């Protein structure tokens, strides 16, 4: 749909499609269907050769004399190590002895996250709330209070961002701190392994399950939507 709007404005577009069934209906002018899991649009992280093959296949469509054209990327078996859908909290049973001190655990994770930053050249998914990692303990206390049913809020929440939206940002930043910290410890870990560790073995994972429960217990659709984004 976006490609159609750009094309109508006079831009030649070529799109990467993750859901063939939708692309067949919407009919962007040119689309390459790739058989990769969501989150892997160009194939695989840190694999420039595969990314270039995907790009080349997408750019080749620009030579087609008319459209719409929908072509399949031929390498169906490529990043075959990841499950078709991401591992969700509901699929992971918490370990028998999960720690319960989130602030202490997060402080340790921050050490690993510093290693991540040193290696990634400062690239991080952390930062949606604008609260720096050095002061993130406050956001954790906020999430704990919220999960416990308190009338919790933070002065950092912009006036025009609803409470459940800010809860979601805090949860996303907490996940980023842990996921990237874990990747600093285990650079080869794939997404399913990191998700199983987070939801199964960390105090933060259990906190976010409780945050989800409070959001999901509301009748307000905004709260329920935020719950769906915090843990499933």
């Amino acid at each position: 749909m976006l490609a159609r709007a750009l094309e109508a404005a006079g831009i030649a577009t070529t799109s990467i499609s993750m859901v063939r069934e939708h692309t067949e209906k919407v009919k962007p002018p040119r689309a390459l269907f790739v058989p990769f899991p969501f989150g892997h649009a160009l194939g695989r992280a840190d694999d420039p050769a595969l990314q270039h093959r995907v790009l080349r296949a997408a750019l080749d469509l620009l030579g087609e004399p008319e459209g719409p054209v929908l072509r399949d990327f031929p390498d169906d078996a490529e990043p075959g190590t990841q499950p078709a859908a991401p591992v969700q909290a509901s699929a992971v049973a918490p370990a028998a002895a999960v720690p319960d001190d989130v602030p202490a655990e997060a402080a340790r994770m921050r050490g690993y996250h510093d290693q991540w930053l040193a290696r990634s050249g400062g690239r991080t998914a952390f930062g949606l709330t604008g609260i720096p990692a050095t002061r993130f303990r406050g956001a954790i206390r906020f999430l704990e209070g919220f999960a416990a049913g308190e009338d919790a809020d933070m002065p950092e929440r912009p006036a025009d961002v609803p409470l459940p939206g800010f809860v979601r940002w805090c949860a996303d930043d907490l996940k980023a701190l842990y996921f990237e910290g874990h990747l600093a410890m285990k650079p080869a870990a794939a997404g399913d392994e990191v998700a199983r560790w987070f939801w199964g073995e960390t105090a933060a994972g259990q906190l976010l399950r409780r945050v989800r429960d409070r959001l999901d217990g509301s009748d307000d659709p905004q709260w329920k939507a935020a719950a769906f984004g915090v843990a499933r």
Partner: protein
Amino acid sequence: MPRLDRLPQINRSTILNLPVQVNDTAPFTPLPRPLAACRVAIVTTAGLHRRGDRPFGPGDQTYRAIPADTPAAEIVQSHTSLGFDRVPIMRDLNVSFPMDRLRELVTRGELGGLAPSHYSFMGAQRDVARIEAETGPEAGRRLRAEGVDVALVTPT
């Protein structure tokens, strides 16, 4: 994938139940010159933006411009749906936003050049009426004004 037949039933249903436009034809702008002379932009629905830009919110049909010289460390993603694996883009922005790969193609002479700005929208939206009628065409006009010939449209 996701070849839908490989997805668990619940994921498959969620995706197939998303409202989707049905069209018979598509607008078509022919490539105005060989690719090796074209200026290319990325337009992504990965919900990316510069650190410090307003994150995308639920149902957000606006867009963010990302100047082409923005360092990768200054780009964050506020599309954080649990429907996709975020580990790949944490490791490598190019998996949805292939700035480095496009630069390499320019260096090799396979593309004419990069646009001054890339553009980013929020994906997985149920209501896209405003993107279709207003913000999508506006981004298209900005791309045209910036001398862009080709947009590579990428999801997350």
